[in-house]
């Protein structure tokens, strides 16, 4: 009896927490269709004009989106190469200082990004003449690395290394073992890490706002700048866009590798 009561209590709390998480998103999505000049809920009528404004606004959201995608995709791709190699070298061999090295690879996660941005800014100004795209790229490249390393390590921790011996005994040379066995088996972890890394880069604000130049501005900074001056439902519309985009990404991820990777 007591157990049942606890169960009901837990269910109610869980539902409340979920409502708390999802309600603001629902409000924003619905409010984005309002024809009024300020965000109101519930919306008075229905209009797509704020969606149109995303494309026609002088704030060039689309250019920001393109910049964000470029930085995010490139940094994620290169970090997959670096992060997977690092994870493999740490997991495959037993050596002194193994954990130190692993913590070193994941340390960008623990350094406050504002402090990190400040350091980078100092370095850039000492060197001088570094284009905005490169400035932001380097920052993102470093701060998203831990997500890929950590997720890859989490699969490699439970990786059955005899699979490699088995493939070898069947005639696979080390390169074939790597591409036919190790990478495919570690793939869910790598992809989960890559998704988290990309999403982090995509909506990163602190670092980008300090490092961007007027010529190269990412989408979150564009939104921030816009918000400072105007607070119309364009922001709700663009938020809806981003929510939908993330949702699609996660659904694709679920379809191809399964989401259970994220809860490990």
């Amino acid at each position, binding site marked *: 009896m007591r157990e049942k009561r606890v169960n009901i209590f837990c269910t109610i709390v869980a539902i409340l927490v979920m409502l708390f998480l999802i309600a603001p998103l629902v409000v924003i999505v619905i409010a984005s269709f309002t024809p009024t000049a300020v965000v109101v809920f519930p919306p008075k009528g229905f209009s797509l004009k704020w969606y149109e404004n995303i494309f026609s606004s002088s704030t060039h959201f689309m250019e920001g989106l393109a910049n964000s995608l470029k930085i995010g995709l490139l940094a994620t791709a290169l970090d997959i190469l670096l992060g997977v190699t690092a994870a493999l070298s740490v997991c495959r061999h037993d050596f002194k200082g193994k954990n130190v090295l692993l913590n070193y690879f994941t340390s960008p996660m623990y350094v406050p990004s504002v402090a990190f941005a400040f350091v980078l800014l100092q370095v850039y100004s000492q060197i001088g003449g570094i284009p905005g795209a490169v400035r932001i790229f380097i920052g993102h490249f470093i701060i998203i690395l831990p997500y890929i390393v950590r997720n890859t390590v989490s699969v490699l921790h439970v990786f*059955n290394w*005899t*699979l490699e*011996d*088995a*493939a*070898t*005994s*069947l*005639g*696979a*040379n*080390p390169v*074939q073992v790597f591409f*036919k*066995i190790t990478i*495919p*088996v570690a*793939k869910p972890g790598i992809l989960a890490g890559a998704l988290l890394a990309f999403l982090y880069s995509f909506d990163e604000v602190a670092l980008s706002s300090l490092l961007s130049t007027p010529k190269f501005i990412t989408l979150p900074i564009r939104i921030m700048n816009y918000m400072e001056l105007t607070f119309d439902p364009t922001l709700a519309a663009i938020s809806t866009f981003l929510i939908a985009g993330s949702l699609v990404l996660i659904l694709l991820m679920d379809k191809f590798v399964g989401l259970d990777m994220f809860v490990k």
Partner: protein
Amino acid sequence: MATLELIGLTKRFGNFTAVDNMNLKAADGEMIALLGGSGCGKTTTLRMIAGFAEPTEGSILVDGADVAKIPPYKRNIGIFFQNYALFPHMTVFENVAFGLKLQKLKKPEIAQRVAEILALVKLTGLDKRYPRELSGGQQQRVALARALVTRPHILLLDEPLSNLDAKLRIEMQVEIKRIQKELGITTIIVTHDHEEAVSLADRVIVMHEGKIQQIGSPNEIFERPCSAFVADFMGFSTFIQGTIGPQEGEKRPVSCSGKLLYVPSAAAEGIEAGSPVTLAVRSENIQLVAEEGENTLPGTISAVTYKGTTTRLEVTGCVAETVCPAVNEYTQRQLGETVLVHIPAQRICVYKNV
């Protein structure tokens, strides 16, 4: 289909010698069991044959040719791993076909060879399943099929039956032996289970601390272990300390804590009279009798363990050590009952104490 020869094979890890000067010659088509407890060097030996570990000293010859310079992926040795090591991202078909694809065989030939080997291990029809969708016994058959399909020179089996339940274990023992004989492939099987070793192999090698303790036919190893250590490992249950006397006809007396036991002279050859010895007997060979005679000792039952077909008793008071007969009588034996234990002289193994 090849001969395998190990000459002075040694592997050291720092100061620790895992395999110590091992010599062995396996004939074409022979099945040899490496038997020993954990850390005896049997798995290290296997890894060296496969090419995963490099010998510190000595050489490995396959068909008379040294394989030291051949990388593991070119040795053409089939390996069955203890945890099966099936590729989780591939179906049964893809797992089995993996080695054939690497040999760049044509698709129809791959399909045919996979179908043949799956029929041999009785897995026809399961080729589209993933390993996680198979039972333990089925996974094991896939692993065996995958190791055999490339037609390796030598097959290595690492604890092939250790993960299976009793019924499946017996079934697979028969299967492995059948398949091995059918293909006539030279096989080394590594195991810690003496029953598995004697039931599968043509020859058994008992290893301890990197050294070969005894090489012999399953029967020799099972009935006449060469040392008290091997006897213990082979499941001998009763060990009695004593002092051996001079020959009396075909027999020699052994004085064991005041009692006299007779052993055949042949079993104690070369042991001087007056030497301290250890006598070893299997439970199944010790009987309970009604009348006193040679090698009968009175004692009291101190423990009874029912084992289904037999009942294992512990009898104290015969000699200083506990004697453990295994009886298959219908009458229930009671704790504290006084019984007469008979240890047949022909069944006693005699080892000089060192």
